[in-house]
């Protein structure tokens, strides 16, 4: 079934089409939710994300890719969930700090699940900015708008996240040695 046809049928509240859409995107959305909210809440947030997807599907204009739109809905749902749970503690007035490089060699050798586990260890405030910037590719201006913070805060949060990852990796390497 073509994507446009699938969307049209989902808008008409056809259960089979909705199931098809769910089957197609659920594994991806679950992974996104896992990155933002951790393993414990990922499934709940994923459910909320799909309910919002079906509810607001009629507003999808078809301008960009549908996957991009559905990812954005999932990310927004994750952020809303973190805000509700008061887990999103971001420094609102950060300073402009240079980007802190993370050890590329170590990262390149890690599997996706190891990286997920590593991201899980980052505090929620840093983690959200890290996910949005490094993985989703949002600009600091967009992140600032999304989280209600200043651009400089977004930059500093990212730096702190990178520092945190590097320290974690260094500790891990020392332990391994």
């Amino acid at each position, binding site marked *: 079934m073509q994507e446009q046809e699938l969307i049209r049928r989902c808008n008409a*509240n056809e259960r089979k089409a909705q199931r098809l859409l769910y089957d197609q995107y659920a*594994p991806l959305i679950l992974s996104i939710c896992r990155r933002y909210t951790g393993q414990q809440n990922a499934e709940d947030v994923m459910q909320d994300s799909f309910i919002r997807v079906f509810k607001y599907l*009629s*507003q999808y204009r078809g*301008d960009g890719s549908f996957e991009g739109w559905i990812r954005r809905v999932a990310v927004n749902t994750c952020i809303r969930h973190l805000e509700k749970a008061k887990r999103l503690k971001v420094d609102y007035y950060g300073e402009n700090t240079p980007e802190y490089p993370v050890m590329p060699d170590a990262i390149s050798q890690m599997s996706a699940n190891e990286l997920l586990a590593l991201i899980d260890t980052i505090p929620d405030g840093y983690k959200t900015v890290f996910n949005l910037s490094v993985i989703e590719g949002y600009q600091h201006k967009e992140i600032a708008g999304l989280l209600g913070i200043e651009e400089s805060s977004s930059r500093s949060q990212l730096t702190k996240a990178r520092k945190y990852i590097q320290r974690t990796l260094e500790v891990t390497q020392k332990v391994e040695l």
Partner: protein
Amino acid sequence: MTEKNFFKEKLYQHTLPVHEGMWHNIEAQLPPEESAKRFPVFWMTLFSTALLGGALMIGLFTQQTKADQKPPAPVPNQEVIASSTLIDHASEDADITGTSAQSSDATDASNKNAPAPSATENFTPNISTEKTATPSSKTQSLNQQKTNQQKINTAGTASNTTASALQQSTSNISSSASNTDIVTIKDAEANHLNDRINDYDVSLLPYRNTAATSLLPMADMHAATALEMMAGIAPDPNCYKFGDIGPHYAFSVDLLGGPGFSPKTYEQNGGETADYIQARKDTETNQYGWSIGARLNLHHRSGLTARLGLQYTQVGDIFDYTDSLATQSTTRIDSFFAADGTFLYTEVTQVLIDGTLVKKIHNTYRYLDIPLLIGYEMRLGRNIVALNAGPVFNLTHTYEGQILDSMLHPRYITPGKPGAIDIYKTNVGMSIYLGAGMLFPLTDRLSAMIEPSYLFRLDPVTLDSYELKEKRGYAGLNLGLRYHIN
């Protein structure tokens, strides 16, 4: 390759296995599937309407058929009617005098076969035989009856039983003939009655009922009573203006149209959308709409009417939107050339202009419906009052214009327009029509009609996935013409 690429490369398209049970949790929170919800309501209403209409029609048709089947209606000649009358009354005479009354010459087969007929039983076939008699034959018959009754009087030995039997048969026809004595009609009165009868075409008597067409009971009645009855003679009953429908059914066609108004209401569809509802109310004002349609009517003589039609309705709103903080962006491209015409470079400048954006857009909503109505029509002098109700089935619903989306941004609702939102159903399902009207005869076959009506649209006109439930009705004033086919 930087560390950013590694994270993105490994995690951007990363997927995780999903439990089967999660879909059921999501499904439980989704609005129920539309088709499953609407199906029984739609079909059950259609079925019950058809059943009710059919039952009423069959019931009334059966009743009418029974009434028509009471008497066989051969057209006898005068001699047969006269002899038949004579034979019947001869048998009454025989009963009175106590002699055997085997009328072997009787021409009425039903009388022959009837087991031990009483006077009352014999009376009925006589009436039916005379039912279709011409005036002249009736006059002759009347004279014959008069002779018979004179015979009864002269006999003077009538038993109470026989007299009361005769009286009973007479009272079946008219209550005015309830006296216990058999009335002798005076010659003058009889002659006067005969003259009056000859003045009228008996075939025009309303429904040729027994009281009016049987001359036998008239003979039993006082002449004044008979004249009173004759005064009630109606003109051609087949004329729709003065009488009821001649055959069982009649057809007519209505062409109607007129102005209307479409009130609408908003309800929340799940989330907290009170601000959005208010914003839509503030930016959309109702306008008057109009409708036009045609209906084919099947009339039963009881007044019940079935109507099937096609109706087009168009409703308009004005979308009035003002954004005092709007920004218009213009791109300016300046190209620079050398003196010899060689292209040097271009400068692209983005110009932002702050201002107020005002939108005033006429939104249009169009409906094509099939009304399937049951009506009842009754006379009010020369006019007819009609009451109509029934389901209306939507064929298609189209829309164009702009409204606010849930983020309070103006968006197109016209399919195919850039950034259009898909929130309206293309078929709004079943509605209920209620109307009351009046018909004014213009010519033999044409009537003017006026019918205020209201259409309840049972379901929201918006999709289930939309944040609001938008319901619309339509109040219309239909003006039109009815053509009476038969």
